[in-house]
């Protein structure tokens, strides 16, 4: 039995056809890309990660024993690919250089605040950043975040609180979680 992002997958007879797999995959691409983009801050690297995650998903999707967990399972694969992409960036020279300062002249102050927040999220370690992105950016419920992060709900909640305190030290956690 194999554990992928907290989802137990079993060997199942038969394989998913390419057409069926495409249909399964299509609605997962956008959340997968948003997750990868928020984690890596590089649109090209994010798309590559989603593509690689798709190949991995195709190889293992036949063993997924609970189709209702497909999204969580796929995002878990994406998260693992993001971790590997960041590990390998020293070797392949991947630039994660999304400009922190945007030339948005219409709302300069808001843009500065956004840049600060992106920098703060980027400073979190991978697991903390993953929880923050899934919870706040992909608006996923905590139990699904825990499933993707591969930890318990309690541990995920503790991780989320800790990350919020780092991002907004001057704001109460419950207030920030709204």
């Amino acid at each position, binding site marked *: 039995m194999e554990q992928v992002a907290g989802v137990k997958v079993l060997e199942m007879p038969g394989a998913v056809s390419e057409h069926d797999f495409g249909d399964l995959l299509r609605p997962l691409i956008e959340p997968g*890309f948003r997750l990868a*983009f928020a984690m890596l801050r590089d649109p090209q690297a994010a798309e590559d990660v989603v593509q690689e995650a*798709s190949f991995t998903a*195709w190889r293992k999707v036949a063993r997924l024993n609970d189709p209702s967990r497909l999204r969580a399972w796929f995002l878990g694969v994406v998260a693992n690919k993001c971790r590997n992409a960041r590990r390998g960036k020293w070797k392949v020279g991947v630039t994660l250089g999304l400009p922190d300062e945007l030339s948005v002249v219409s709302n300069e102050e808001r843009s500065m605040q*956004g840049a600060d927040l992106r920098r703060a999220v980027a400073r979190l370690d991978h697991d903390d950043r993953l929880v923050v992105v899934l919870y706040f950016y992909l608006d996923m419920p905590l139990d699904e975040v825990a499933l993707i992060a591969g930890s318990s709900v309690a541990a995920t909640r503790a991780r989320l609180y800790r990350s919020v305190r780092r991002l907004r030290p001057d704001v109460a956690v419950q207030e920030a979680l709204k």
Partner: protein
Amino acid sequence: MSLRTDVHTAFDEVAPSTFGMPDRVVRTVVAELPERRRKERWFVRLRAPLSLVAVLLLLSIAVGVLVGGRVARDWNAFTRPAPAGYQPTELERLEARPLVLPSLKAGDTCPETPLNQYGLYGYWPVLGAPGSAVSSAWGTYWYPAVVTDSRLTGLVLVRARDLQSGQPVIFVGNSATGPVVGTDTLNGVLIQQRRDLVLDTRHPPLNTLGPGSYTWGITAGRAKGGSACIGWQIDTTGYPTEVFVPRQIPT
């Protein structure tokens, strides 16, 4: 504004449009699937043979290390010179030189060596000088001398035999060496008789016959019953063996 809203705003304002991306990614993935599947199959097929090859490679390396180590050790043992403790010493090398003194039969004439221009026997860098003799209950003792070139820096091994009987001549004193072959009392002193004489020219005596040479006074002896025909063999490091037979000493 809540943190959720801020996070949305912060990332959405820099995120590129995903319009068309799902279709693009799915198309790419589906198009590459056959190739990936083929590679997967090859990989699965090769996994077992590759594992076997890896194991065999590891075994080969292990065997190579073992065999190579043994061969290297044997080669080293083969090519390494003998340990210092087993190196023949300078004296052993001189002792290993064979005795080339002639053996005379009864009635043969003693092949006496004439004195050279210096009134000595032999030739440079080691010469023999005749000396006086005294008799004892055991036999006869002589007090000859050996003259060596002062430039010598090695050992000089002196061996002597009665050429008629083959009986060895013995030596007495500090320079006498080899196994003790007998004892006697000479001039009221108990002495040990040894078979050979070794002169270490690195520690020469103070007396000398002249500049450029050292004179070593020695004591040699022959038991009663031998002939007066004595052959001397001188072996010097770095020089060929030298043999001379002094004029016969009356017994």
